[in-house]
């Protein structure tokens, strides 16, 4: 499957090393926070094909087992591969039927191992993942990147979210956010991303996970405002520019 040797035979095509070189259909930022009862995660539903916003109903947040939520940015097909992998993992875990179950901590570490091992083979899964969950009252929230860099925090984001959303969260996140406050905070972040990230679209899903279970919201849009006076005459201060 993955080899660095070029294969050559009598009259056959020379195959170079097979590994992921670049992503094709990509999702943009995911943002997630811990709140009073668990984790809130938000992502838009866009799948870009280069600079084209080609797919507009891509679900980039999925529940994993009973206790976890996985959100991904980056290559969508690799995300689907990860979901298939985790599905099998959870299945075998359930088959034991013995009172033990893989919680968010275990899934997070499994993902970390998977991403890092692929990176070592120079064939990464081109994703930045956010794994959140609640088990036995304990909240977990962490992120794993395509090269295996991983950390846990009270609020995490991928891609542009790190630059635009996290500063807002650093200022405004609190330990005891209610569900409504959490959603409002996430929407504030997603709005900034919508204005400033060109791969973002105005169609979001917000997912919540608590001890009771997972809820992924129906897709919805945020209200945007473009009536700033500065937009009336944009080149006022700089004659000759456009």
């Amino acid at each position, binding site marked *: 499957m993955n080899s660095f040797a070029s294969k050559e035979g009598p009259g056959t095509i020379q195959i170079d090393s097979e590994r992921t070189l670049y992503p094709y259909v990509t999702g943009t930022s995911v943002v997630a926070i811990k709140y009073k009862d668990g984790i809130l995660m938000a992502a838009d539903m866009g799948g870009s094909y280069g600079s084209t916003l080609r797919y507009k109903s891509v679900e980039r947040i999925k529940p994993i087992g009973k206790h976890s939520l996985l959100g991904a940015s980056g290559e969508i097909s690799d995300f689907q591969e990860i979901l298939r992998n985790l599905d099998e993992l959870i299945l075998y875990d359930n088959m*034991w039927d*013995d*009172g*033990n*179950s*893989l*919680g968010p*901590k*275990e899934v*997070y*570490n*499994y993902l970390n*191992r998977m991403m890092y091992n692929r990176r070592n083979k120079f064939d990464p899964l081109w994703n930045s993942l956010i794994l959140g969950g609640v088990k036995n009252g304990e909240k977990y929230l962490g992120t794993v990147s395509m090269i295996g860099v991983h950390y846990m925090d009270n609020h995490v984001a991928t891609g542009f979210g790190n630059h635009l959303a996290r500063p807002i969260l650093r200022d405004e996140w609190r330990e005891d956010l209610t569900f409504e406050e959490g959603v409002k905070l996430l929407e504030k972040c997603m709005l900034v991303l919508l204005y400033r990230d060109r791969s973002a679209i105005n169609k979001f899903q917000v997912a919540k996970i608590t001890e009771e279970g997972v809820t992924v919201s129906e897709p919805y849009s945020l209200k945007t405002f473009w009536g700033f006076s500065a937009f009336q005459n944009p080149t006022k201060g700089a004659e000759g520019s456009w």
Partner: protein
Amino acid sequence: MFRNQYDTDVTTWSPAGRLFQVEYAMEAVKQGSAAIGIRSKSHVILASVNKANSELSSHQKKIFKVDDHIGLAIAGLTADGRVLSRYLRSECINYKFVYESPLPVGRLVVQLADKAQVCTQRSWKRPYGVGLLVAGLDESGAHLYYNCPSGNYFEYQAFAIGSRSQAAKTYLERKFETFTNSTRDELIKDALFAIKETLQGEKLTSSICTVAVVGINEPFHIIDQKTIQPLIDSLEIKEEGGEPNTTLQDDTSPEAAPMDI
């Protein structure tokens, strides 16, 4: 057991549906020195009798730590026990590396049992000649399992294996209903008493037995000899202090035994 024509290899069934080689392997367990396990809601205690080949040599190691939350005691071929311990340690640490979480005991013993079963179904292998008392803690509580060479495993409240283990089992059977709610120290005393029963007359000292414990917030470890000796001494005091001797009573029934002429 007597020799018969169906006992040469493990892949031959007897007409009665028995695998004699497997049963002989279980005999090997009965020859080893005793090992005992007792479980409560929060702790599991393992105790074993240490045999030494001679006064010059050190004692056989019979209790192994597998992970912070799992340990085991063996009876039988100690070499087989050592090899299996290495396998179990390997499984535990691999799981921990991937999931950052301790391997549930129940899953470990199934893997061990499956490994033992393989040896009962290959003509070029022999069954492991060691019985393992696996003690551990996981999400679903405290557990004590017995894995035998046949590839079977059972969960126990308390169990004893090895030579003269019947004496210990008799004692444990009397008291097992109290174990769930026993404290850690009560469990240790019960384990020591059970070990004493298997010695049948020989003096119990901390140098000929090993006791290990695993519990909630207490990683698996072998208890220091220095800590064990006072507990043994307190057992003796209790015994001498007039605890009724509960070994077999003489038959004093007046009726004559029926004669069948």
